[in-house]
């Protein structure tokens, strides 16, 4: 068996050991807890090595596991696509292993059993790894279920509050509806092939109509899990409620596993692609991106803001995938590969910076027990390292050079700008409009993260807990430093990363993106140097040179230094923390401009001294989609209770009728 496949299976076995340790004795001794996290870290390293190995190997390797049904054993396959998605699993697991010991200490003395947290985390990561490695539909669905159910227990960890229980229930419900849709999609494919393993699904011959049905089912199922609008409502409920390192894994890794599932199904298994699919994916992706960014800007709970931002970034990934589908189905192979590489790069980037941001939010929660940004402030001076790493995460997610978010957005723009190759004039006008929506998203995301960082870390502290906050333990800082360093490296060294990612289209389609990296490790040229060229390392060096040079020049000329004084207060008495701009105030202009897109409930209650301003910004999708569907289901269920009349003879009558019908069908 190839070495990287051994690493992958080894990582799963290590996780199994960790889960067992977590379930049985993790909660009693802190030394065993540390051993548990070391096992998670080792598993992460093994997964990372397996992924890198698979991306550097020419062909896929597979093995049959001695589990499963007799005529349908479980098959595991490690090819370039699986290997690529093992990377975020590995990298974030390593971060969580560094972060965990310090963070879960606060749960050790609470009412919730740590055994649940430890055991199910291990099972959760096993589920995700198996989904990525699965080579037949049966193992895929089993692993998918394992992933969903174990994450349900993690989301419901702090189940004392009713809101958390509701969020966990919604999460489980939508995960299962999505899973059902995916199962039906596989069913359609298997109906035309002769087996459930991916090789026979790949060779299945589908008519265009059935292919579209299968695509629709897969898009619905994987899109629901990835968090595309309008099926995203579970995301901002479930992600904030889980412990922070679990939120990091869910937002950072689980959403990518859903993206993996979509890519595997559509780009690998279905066969001939249709441009209509590409337009649908592009439209849904653009809407998700814009709506996610808009809603993120309105949130005051820091973890909810990050959850909506995940919706936005998944939208961006799907914009890239939609572009890829459009180009590939119209025969522009190279451009389709470029768009796919851009989408994959963004998926990896999002895994890194979203995990970083969630771990940072968790550090703030750990230090100050506050999740509401309106009670935070001035944390940069009290938690300088967390503040620095959170700043790196904010710059990366706002897609600003020279960090990694910018590279993937730049590649997506370059792919969209090649739309002039398309024959259809309608597509040639729709693609740049989608790119303009992407630009709007980037600007809104930057605004959202200026708000998040500015209100939480800058300014003055707005509550006592936050004023007393102190920097967290070195382990938690190391995890954030690891992810921040990766964000910087993936930003300034895009060429080696693209060389790695290139293995995926080479294996899927036969050819990759050679000229992107043809001009050396310093220059990124997706199409040709005359078309577009970017050298992030030179940009970083120039920024450092000019900034540092200005600072050194000013110091050298011995100019007068700095004096501390009070802030400008316009002649009034000393400004206190309550006179600062709040998060609600910061996002008010956007709230006003985009009013029809939100559901805003705003009022001033009370009289005199007891006056209170109340604002609630909720998701339009609830009223437009979820509430009608829920009430429709309830009405249908109430109608069906007519069947339960209570009379014994009626029940016997139903059994008789069913028997007669079955006998008639069999004969």
């Amino acid at each position: 068996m190839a070495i990287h496949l051994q690493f992958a299976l080894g990582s799963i076995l290590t996780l199994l050991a960790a889960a067992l340790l977590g379930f049985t004795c993790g909660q009693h001794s802190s030394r065993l807890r540390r051993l548990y996290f070391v096992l998670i870290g080792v598993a992460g390293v093994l997964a990372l090595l397996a992924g890198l190995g698979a991306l550097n190997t020419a062909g896929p390797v597979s093995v049959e596991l001695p589990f499963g049904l007799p005529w349908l054993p479980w098959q595991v396959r490690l090819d370039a696509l699986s290997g690529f998605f093992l990377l975020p699993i590995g990298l974030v697991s390593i971060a969580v292993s560094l972060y965990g010991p310090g963070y879960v200490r606060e749960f050790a003395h609470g009412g919730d059993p740590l055994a649940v947290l430890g055991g199910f985390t291990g099972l959760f990561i096993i589920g995700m790894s198996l989904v990525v490695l699965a080579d037949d539909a049966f193992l895929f669905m089993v692993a998918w279920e394992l992933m969903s159910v174990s994450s349900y227990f993690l989301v419901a960890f702090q189940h004392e509050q009713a809101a958390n229980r509701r969020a966990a229930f919604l999460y489980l419900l939508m995960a299962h509806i999505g899973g059902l849709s995916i199962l039906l999609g596989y069913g359609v494919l298997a109906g035309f092939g002769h087996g459930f393993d991916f090789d026979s699904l790949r060779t299945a011959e589908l008519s265009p109509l059935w292919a579209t049905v299968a695509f629709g089912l897969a898009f619905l199922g994987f899109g629901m899990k990835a968090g595309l609008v309008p099926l995203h409502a579970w995301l901002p409920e479930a992600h904030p409620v889980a412990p922070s390192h679990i939120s990091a894994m869910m937002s950072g890794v689980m959403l990518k596993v859903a993206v993996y599932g979509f890519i595997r199904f559509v780009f690998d298994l279905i066969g001939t692609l249709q441009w209509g699919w590409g337009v649908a994916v592009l439209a849904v992706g653009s809407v998700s991106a814009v709506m996610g960014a808009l809603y993120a800007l309105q949130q005051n709970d820091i973890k909810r803001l990050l959850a909506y931002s995940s919706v936005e970034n998944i939208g961006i990934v799907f914009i890239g995938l939609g572009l890829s589908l459009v180009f590939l189905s119209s025969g522009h192979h190279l451009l389709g590969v470029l768009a796919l590489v851009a989408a994959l790069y963004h998926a990896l980037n999002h895994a890194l910076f979203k995990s970083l941001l969630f771990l940072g939010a968790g550090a703030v929660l750990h230090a100050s027990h506050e999740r509401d940004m309106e009670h935070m402030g001035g944390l940069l001076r009290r938690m300088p390292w967390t503040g620095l790493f959170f700043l790196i995460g904010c710059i990366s997610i706002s897609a600003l050079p020279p960090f990694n978010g910018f590279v993937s957005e730049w590649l997506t723009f370059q792919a969209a700008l090649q739309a002039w190759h398309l024959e259809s004039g309608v597509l040639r006008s729709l693609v740049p409009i989608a790119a303009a929506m992407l630009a709007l998203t980037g600007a809104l995301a930057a605004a959202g993260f200026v708000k998040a960082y500015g209100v939480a870390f800058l300014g003055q502290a707005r509550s006592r807990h936050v004023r007393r906050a102190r920097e967290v333990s070195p382990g938690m800082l190391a995890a954030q430093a690891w992810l921040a360093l990766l964000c910087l490296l993936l930003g300034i060294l895009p060429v080696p990363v693209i060389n790695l990612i290139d293995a995926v289209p080479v294996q899927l389609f036969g050819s990759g993106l050679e000229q992107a990296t043809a001009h050396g490790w310093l220059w990124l040229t997706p199409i040709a140097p005359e078309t577009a060229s970017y050298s992030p390392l030179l940009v970083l060096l120039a920024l450092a040179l000019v900034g540092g040079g200005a600072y050194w020049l000013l110091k050298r000329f011995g100019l007068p230094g700095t004096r501390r004084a009070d802030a400008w207060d316009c002649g009034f008495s000393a400004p206190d923390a309550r006179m600062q701009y709040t998060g609600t105030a910061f996002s008010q202009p956007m709230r006003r401009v985009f009013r029809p897109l939100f559901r805003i409930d705003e009022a001033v209650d009370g009289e005199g001294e007891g006056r209170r301003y109340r604002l609630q910004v909720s998701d339009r999708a609830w009223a437009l989609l979820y509430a009608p569907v829920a009430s429709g289901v309830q009405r249908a269920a109430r109608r069906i209770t007519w069947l339960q009349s209570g009379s014994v003879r009626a029940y016997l009558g139903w059994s008789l009728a069913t028997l007669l019908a079955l006998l008639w069908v069999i004969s």
Partner: protein
Amino acid sequence: MSAASWLLALLQALLFIAAAPLLAAWVKRVKSRLQNRRGPALLQPYRDLRKLFAKESVVAHTASPLFRAAPYVVFAATCLAAALIPLVAAQLPTAAVADVIVLVGLLGLARFFLALAGMDVGTAFGGMGSSREMLVSGLAEPALLLAVFTLAMSAHTTNLASVIDYVGRADFALRPSFMFAFGAMLLVAVAETGRVPVDNPATHLELTMIHEAMILEYSGRHLALMEWAAQLKLMIYGVLVANVFFPWGIATELTPAALGMGLLAVTAKLALLGIALALSETVLAKMRLFRAPLYLNVAFLLALLGLLSHVILEVGA
């Protein structure tokens, strides 16, 4: 990409940075003349910068290290953006380092740190400025990028040197898409550089400020860097509009005669743009804040019409 061309690129960047206060002074001077005043001398901004650099910098008690680092980041990002734009000569190696989208990204990085600096001290004015700035830039960026895309769809490139080459070499043609993109870029340039009618750079009333509110707490050398960065930004947009839409005169070979011609051409174009800006600032009044989204919607509509004209009229079936 020889050493000589890199040296020339460096010199051009230094010239750009040094000339930015001059453009701001020219606009102020023309505006004063239109208002029947004599106005400050053309070298006044240099004297102001020298004065500010020589002064002590006063920092609030509640400011964090980011407050002191932000001016350097803003200045560095804006200088680098300036170095990327062909000012005098078109075929310089900086075009390979970054294209138009990276340029917009660098300006976005500067704006990010500027907005954070506004929120850093914890006063109401700074937060207000940051909030308004993110509103205006959030709505301006799609319009700007759509106008850039319209150009890129015609020129098939986002590399600034290639775009200028394309527009300059082709025979003169009246392109509706370029006209609309030009209109959109003018509107966006006014919004992004904080000029009337979106923001008044000469106001002293805090409640009407956008850009000034974010740098209200700065003094001394920090304020000098921020002011210089703002003047650079004005010149960046001016040169971008002038040299991309009207590239005639820019040097295509690196000979002294061509360079001299390029310098003369860009000076003339910037002078004309300065007069146009001063005229519009005198004639128009500053809009109230929530009319700015309507203004930016018009810019977006123009960019969209540019794209549609390109697809429908210029390429056709």
